[in-house]
């Protein structure tokens, strides 16, 4: 066991790190789904856009200015998407909103494709995060170690916000019962906007950590992580923030072990790289069949 840990440490470490980055994105999915019952297909692309903004902004200004600006712009992007593409459809059937989300995703991808010329851009080095360190014979970047810690800190802050502030309380109320909360005088639009703002903010932080690790951003780099994070959210029980975080860590770790770990039980290793993506969805189908509500989800029944 120890030997296994030792020989696979770098994969496990990067798994934990990727898991943390996924967690930050997954929260955006789970919160939006909790409140609007909408799979925000565009969330992964918001994450990608945050990466691209960093590429362009850091080229023209110092890092210390670029980072906060990226955060602000990503938040603005998330806010605008909600206002333009989802708010007008609030009373429309759910399928229309989902289609709108797919449309936004398509738009963001094509916009990115146009502005980048379809090429992957090199992600700038964020000075301290990109440094290489060595832990137990495995060399890795600082970001690998920082990610899980930062993730946990942010999740704790978010939980406190949801538990103790007025807007957090409103969020919980809306996710429990949309119509009633509206009748009770909760400003639904504000709650939804705040949800998108928080989600986009976390996605922006996630993008900085994620792309520092991967070193390049392409217009399509949002799609896969986006879907995986949604799976993580479903796995943990959609609507539940701790669930999303745990789901994301599980997916991140498993995926990295499959990708690079030496064979465990005869599977894993280089031949299975193709399947690291597929694994996530196999996991999704399994969890949905075995426990459709996810690990921490609540059961909802239709009234007849």
């Amino acid at each position, binding site marked *: 066991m120890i030997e296994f840990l030792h020989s696979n440490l770098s994969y496990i470490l990067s798994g934990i790190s990727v898991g943390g980055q996924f967690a930050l994105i997954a929260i955006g999915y789970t919160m939006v789904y909790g409140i609007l019952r909408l799979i925000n297909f565009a969330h992964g692309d918001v994450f990608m856009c945050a990466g691209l903004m960093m590429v362009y902004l850091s080229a023209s200004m110092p890092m210390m200015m670029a980072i906060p600006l990226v955060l602000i712009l990503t938040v603005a992007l998330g806010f605008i998407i909600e206002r333009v593409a989802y708010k007008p459809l609030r009373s429309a059937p759910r399928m229309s909103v989902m*289609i709108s989300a797919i449309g936004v995703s398509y738009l963001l991808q094509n916009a990115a494709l*146009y502005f980048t010329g379809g090429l992957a851009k090199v992600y700038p080095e964020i000075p301290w995060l990109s440094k290489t360190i060595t832990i137990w014979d495995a060399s890795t970047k600082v970001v690998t170690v920082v990610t899980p810690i930062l993730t946990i800190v942010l999740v704790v802050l978010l939980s406190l916000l949801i538990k103790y502030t007025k807007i957090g309380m409103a969020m919980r109320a809306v996710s429990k019962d949309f119509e009633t909360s509206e009748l009770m005088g909760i400003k639904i639009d504000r709650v939804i906007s705040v949800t998108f703002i928080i989600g986009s903010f976390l996605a922006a932080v996630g993008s900085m950590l994620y792309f520092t690790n991967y070193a390049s951003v392409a217009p399509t780099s949002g*799609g896969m992580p986006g879907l995986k994070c949604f799976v993580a959210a479903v796995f943990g029980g959609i609507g539940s923030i701790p669930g999303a975080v745990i789901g994301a860590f599980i997916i991140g770790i498993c995926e990295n072990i499959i990708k690079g770990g030496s064979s465990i039980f005869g599977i894993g290793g280089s031949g299975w790289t193709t399947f690291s993506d597929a694994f996530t969805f196999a996991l999704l189908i399994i969890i949905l069949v075995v426990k459709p509500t996810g690990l921490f989800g609540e059961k909802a029944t239709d009234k*007849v």
Partner: protein
Amino acid sequence: MGKKNKTELWIALVAIALVYIVVIILEQTMSPGNILFTVLKKGAIYSLVAVSMNLLNGFTGLFSLGQAGFMLIGAYTYAILTMPVAVKLSDQVYKYYDCIIHFDTGILVGLICAGIAAAVFAALIGLPVLRLKSDYLAIATLGFAEIIRAIFQWNTLGPVTNGANVMREYKDLTSVVIPIINVRIPPTLFVFIVAGLCIAFIVLLINSSYGRAFKAIRDDEIAAEAMGINLFRHKQMSFVISSFFAGISGALLAMFQYTVVASQFKSAMTYEILLIVVIGGIGSISGSCIASFLYIALSEWWLRGLDMGKFLGIDAPGIFRSGFRRFIFSIIIMVIVLFFSRGLMGDKELSFRWLAKKLRRKRSGEAAAKGGGPNA
């Protein structure tokens, strides 16, 4: 069926026959390299896959996003089956693997097997997935399409699928020959015939008792179940049939492209098809067809200049560069989704009665606008 409906039906049949005659004439008179044929062929292929998606999303109310995956299965099944044995054994296509399939089939068998392969996969995947609620279904089918793509690119399956490498040298549209009498069918006509037959089947299905059961499930699952409609069986039926035709359209796409590679069947392709369905109107077969041709004509022909530096005589290579066309496209699509969410046709079908009604409403609308001035 009323007399009025019967005349409508005849008019529609005549109109469809006319379309085919025009296709035949065009193909005899114009050079085959004309861009029009690209649009017609690709448009017909996309019509088929859009209609098959509409059967699920529009008529059964299942929000499925697996279409690209089923097309991939169809395309590969077709390519593998119809590639001549000699090519398979040489290293023309299978450079890094030894192909283990030592037989080849004709085009028709290839097409049907393409559909069946997709349908079999659909039946298998449907077992767990179709019991899910709508939005989970969307993600699960999208995920499934990704898994399929990964499997087809997998090294271990290389001797069958050629790994992540391009498939080519299989029977394409130029080699369609009617057996026995040895008459060559022109490519565009062939695509139109296959797609037309498939769409006709779907139209008949939708207007049959089963089609009504699908719509009942879409409108109210609980009521449908209470009236004796087995939800799972009917959903699976719709899913399998839709996938069968997605498989065939995948095979047609492979024929049309001469080469096919797994990496082209990304989720973006499914999104594209979904957006075509939305533009045409969810729940309208003719809408899906019109939107497909429109979409393909715009992207392959009319708006090509947006990517090439020159559009409508305006020369601006700085703006009109690669990718601008799709960017403009996605903006148009968003506008349609947000402001014209019923699409071109809503859930109605194109017919002369429909056209007449539209015209009348337009005229009366104009009259009302003129007459209603003082009151307003």
